[in-house]
């Protein structure tokens, strides 16, 4: 797995200095930009193009806090896709909200629609509360991690470090359910059927 932190020469932390990141991005991009290599030989030009798109991908990952956090935990061997222990109550509530959205799409009567929307928004409010709880814990864990010195080698992680990153991976997966639901709710509020593409 490519280490984007390493590529940008920055520490593996959850919080990053975005101005520094942006400056670094522009420096790296101007060094490898394909336009600088128009006169170079074919092989060198292709290499510059590939490098340039790698830098773009790394920058996109590091720029936003959620993709950056996912990348960090994955580098240490905690892929989000392996987080199977989702609280059943969260899944149930998300399912319930999705069913309300489906009902809303089917309903023709204005009063019925209003009633369903009202119920949906009550669920959404509850889930927003859960998201705030998740984000508060996420921030606490991130600060704790960012203050320490850490090994770069997943095999050398201490039990405490493993616990922090494992919990972080779980929180990120719980958040993904809320995020997908948020997209569906926002589509429903605009009267559009949700069409999900990842």
């Amino acid at each position, binding site marked *: 797995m490519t280490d984007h932190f390493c590529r940008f020469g920055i520490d593996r932390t959850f919080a990053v200095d975005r101005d520094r990141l942006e400056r670094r991005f522009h420096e790296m991009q101007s060094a490898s930009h394909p336009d600088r290599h128009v006169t170079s030989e074919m092989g060198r030009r292709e290499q510059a193009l590939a490098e340039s798109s790698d830098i773009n991908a790394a920058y996109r990952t590091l720029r936003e806090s959620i993709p950056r956090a996912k990348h960090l935990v994955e580098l240490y061997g905690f892929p989000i*896709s392996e987080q*199977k222990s989702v609280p059943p109550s969260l*899944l149930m509530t998300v399912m319930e909200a999705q069913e309300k*959205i489906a009902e809303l799409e089917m309903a023709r009567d204005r009063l019925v629609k209003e009633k369903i929307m009202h119920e949906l928004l009550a669920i959404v409010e509850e889930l927003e509360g859960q998201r705030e709880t998740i984000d508060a814990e996420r921030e606490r864990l991130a600060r704790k991690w960012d203050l320490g010195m850490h090994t770069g080698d997943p095999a050398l992680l201490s039990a405490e470090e493993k616990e922090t990153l494992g919990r972080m991976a779980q929180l990120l997966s719980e958040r*993904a359910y809320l995020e997908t639901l948020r997209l569906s709710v926002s589509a429903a509020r605009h009267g559009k059927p949700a069409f*999900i593409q990842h």
Partner: protein
Amino acid sequence: MAYSEKVIDHYQNPRNVGTLDPNDPSVGTGLVGAPECGDVMRLQLRINPDSGVIEDAKFKTFGCGSAIASSSFATEMIKGKTVDEAYEIKNTTIVKELNLPPVKIHCSVLAEDAIKAAIEDYKKKQESVAHAEPVAQ
């Protein structure tokens, strides 16, 4: 990304969408989610307690086209199978049948997990039914 014809068919005309009574002791419910993309899938089976044959299957999936197609296809595939046969179904069968691209393999894993979760729920219910029945004097 281009979906295969079979995925599009199942996405546009999903089979067996619906709900079975979750409180019915012969119904097993599996509710699973994909942690990376946040898709949720509920799969329910009605099982004949005497023969162990799956007589009905319903699903509801909120997610991408591949997740909907995977669950639709899974319900079609398991009807008429015994619980034990259904438990052995692997996601790779779904991948092959629907021609899912590598980035969508997790959708088929979700369907496999949902089948297993539904069967486990059914078995747990049957055990508690057996315990609840008065012992013959």
